């Protein structure tokens, strides 16, 4: 029976149907044969029963559907202590804080360019401490300039994205290594509400911190007394407001100093330095402080400084109290404050390489 070309046109329907049926049954048979071959091969090669699971394994991975646990049968919220290694800086970071860390690490954050620019600008100054300070600014920056920043941000934002309130989310956990975290141990977002604090607490806080009350959060600034975002006038004002007129002077000037080698210059020298307006390489906060310090250079104020600090220093450290005693009994205002100036800070801040004469005014920032 040789194969011939056949024309389908002349055929009747029944014949066509029969042909179609033949073709169909051939195809089905071939398909079944294919399956048989597959099984035959699998058995002969030995992998036919290979994927049968054992009961135990089946149970292991069974889905759990009960309240209070996830599908693995685990209780919620037990994953708090996960850590990971940053691919950029190779440090170990808590997983839940990885994203904000990475943002800064990659220099991608909203403020990263500002921080970088400041760093560049202040590296032109001799003042290293400025730049250290500003490393931490990024965390707190937002709140201070929150109002204006936010509008600018809106302009560029994706018209269809949600925005979370940034001020709520920043913690001080991920500071860069060259800054003492102690200084910023308060979570800025919680801030300090002065209304709930008693006078002693307020005093102690005001001896160590800037304390200026933020207009929109009504909380006190927890940064150092040198905080560049607030002026000395503001700091004075808040102390007057909270502690009464007697505390109008900024305390703690003595402990905020870095200059170890500063000996007491005489008052004249100090006065002459006051007139120095500052050269171009002084950052804005310097000039602000020199203006403010002019005010403080009145001898009476200096005296007040000393005694004021004495009063507020009750809660301070041993060493300072001892020093203060020395200072109080020292006599003249300027010399006592200068003795105080000689104290090294109890806070471990890097040493200030400023000209010694300016140091009195630095601490007033």
């Amino acid at each position, binding site marked *: *029976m*040789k*194969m011939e070309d056949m024309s389908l046109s002349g055929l009747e329907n029944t014949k066509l149907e029969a042909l179609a049926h033949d073709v169909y049954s*051939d195809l089905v048979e*071939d398909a079944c*044969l*294919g399956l048989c*071959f597959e099984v*035959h*091969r699998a058995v*002969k*090669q*030995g*992998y036919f029963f*290979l*994927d*049968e*699971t*054992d009961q*135990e*394994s*089946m149970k292991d*991975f*069974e*889905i759990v*559907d009960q309240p209070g646990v*996830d*599908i*693995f049968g*685990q209780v919620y919220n037990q*994953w708090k202590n*996960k850590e*990971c290694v*940053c*691919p950029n800086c190779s440090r170990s970071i808590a*997983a*839940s*804080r*990885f*994203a*904000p*860390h*990475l*943002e800064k690490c*990659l220099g*991608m*954050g*909203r403020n990263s360019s500002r921080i970088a620019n400041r760093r560049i600008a202040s590296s032109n100054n001799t003042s290293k401490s400025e730049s250290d300070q500003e490393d931490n600014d990024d965390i707190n920056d937002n709140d201070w300039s929150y109002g204006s920043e936010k509008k600018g941000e*809106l302009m560029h*934002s*994706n*018209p*269809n*994205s*949600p*925005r*979370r*309130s940034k001020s*709520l*989310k920043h913690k001080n956990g991920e500071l860069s290594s060259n800054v003492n975290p102690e200084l910023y141990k308060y979570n800025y977002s919680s801030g300090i509400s002065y209304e709930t604090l008693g006078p002693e607490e307020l005093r102690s806080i005001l001896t160590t911190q800037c304390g200026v009350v933020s207009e929109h959060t009504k909380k006190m600034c927890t940064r150092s007394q040198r905080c560049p975002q607030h002026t000395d006038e503001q700091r004075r004002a808040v102390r007057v407001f909270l502690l009464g007129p007697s505390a109008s002077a900024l305390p703690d000037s003595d402990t905020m100093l870095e200059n170890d080698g500063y000996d007491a210059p005489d008052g004249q020298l100090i006065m002459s330095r006051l007139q120095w307006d500052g050269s171009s390489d002084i950052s804005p906060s310097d000039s602000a402080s020199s203006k403010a310090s002019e005010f403080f250079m009145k001898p009476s104020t200096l005296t007040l400084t000393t005694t004021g600090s004495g009063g507020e220093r009750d809660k301070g450290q041993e060493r300072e109290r001892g020093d203060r005693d020395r200072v109080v009994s020292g006599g003249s205002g300027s010399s006592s404050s200068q003795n105080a100036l000689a104290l090294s800070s109890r806070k471990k801040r890097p040493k200030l390489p400023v000209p010694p004469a300016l140091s009195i005014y630095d601490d007033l920032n």
Partner: protein
Amino acid sequence: MSPAGCSHVNGFKVDNWKQNLRVIYQCFVWSGSAETRKRKAKSCICHLCGAHLNRLHSCLHCVFFGCFSKKHIHEHAKSKRHNLAIDLLYGGIYCFVCQDYIYDKDMEQIAKEEQRKAWKLQGSPPPHHQCIGEKYSMWEPTKRELELLRHNPKRRKITANCTIGLRGLINLGNTCFMNCIVQALTHTPLLRDFFLSDRHKCEMQSNSCLVCEMSQLFQEFYSGHRSPHIPFRLLHLVWTHARHLAGYEQQDAHEFLIAALDVLHRHCKGDDNGKKANNPNHCSCIIDQIFTGGLQSDVTCQVCHGVSTTIDPFWDISLDLPGSSTPFWPLSPGSDGSVVNGDSHPSGATTLTDCLRRFTRPEHLGSSAKIKCSGCHSYQESTKQLTMKRLPIVACFHLKRFEHSAKLRRKITTYVSFPLELDMTPFMASSKESRMNGQYLQPVDSLNNDNKYSLFAVVNHQGTLESGHYTTFIRQHKDQWFKCDDAIITKASIKDVLDSEGSVAHIHQLFLFYTL
């Protein structure tokens, strides 16, 4: 010699046996082109009875065809002492001494190669889905692997009630926007299949390939680990390669989705810089194959009725919602009580279909937006209409809930109901003609499944614009749904997913992922 082979092949494996075998496979078993198929059909008949079916076999030692069912080939083997024959349908080698089909490693190797060659020849090259091309071969264990498997009978098998494939993701600090998209992607069936079958061949020089990281992510999801995965490397890579996301500040899931797809698409090509020709219409990377569709935009001049058409690629379809400041088109008259896509909804609730209808409606561009008409050679008023030219395999619908207008920033909380199965036929460019005649209801061809999609992932947002949280519902094993809330995965019901009355407080659907 494998245990499945036999010693009787040794008599065959002499001289130029490999070439001879190849010829047999090429001519009589695996026919690639139409020509060879004809030749095979004509020449392969039983030498004894002339039948061309009946499980025809060819003798390996000489030119003889005999049918198996009628034992003609057996007779030949006995009389000529030719012990081997090959089945012309499937290429299996039969040994008459062993009286069984045998599987010899070398011969199988040749068979596989010839088979692949034939597959490549079959069918025409573009469009790619019409030709067999590169078929995926199942994994088979080697002898050593077989041994190991027998010694270690414990197995992890993905069955219907299995947790494998599901895993939580740790929140890295407001990264739920990333987690929700990652969950949707890892449960995209085609993408999952691509990565689990190890199809990615990395050509990137550096080790910052996002596709490799994605592959690793799938390994993590299918590892059987119960603790949630920490996707820090993924975050790092996406931010490194998509700088415009500007870091932690951006918590928009939609932007993340587009950026991630873009980076994956670039890295599929093995290129760090995206400089290689990235014409989305011709890209064959897995991302484009799965996600890219073509959106047709027709601008019709009102004067001469000339139509100017452009087709743009898209990865997702962003739909406006009622309640936004852009006016929402009222539902067409023909839709009352319509059951298109199974939306027999109580009047008032907006459906996904409504949003799609609005998306594809003809829009009259006002007199302030006149387009230069090439037919009239002047500026005329026109209407513009969008339709689907080419549907993607995975359609992602983005409901535009976050509105940032000049004075207003808000989240639109209008409830939108959506179906489990969606037919996109009414929104195709091909259906446009009839729609322009006012017919909104198309006779639904229930046998044609070309445009029928099934829902497999829903991304929800709860909360306000300022502070909110993303979660995802994903579908696994056909009918099981799970809720993914960062590190916590729980079982969910279809009812939870569809939220048919919009009754769950403060939860609003944001992305709907459908697959063909």
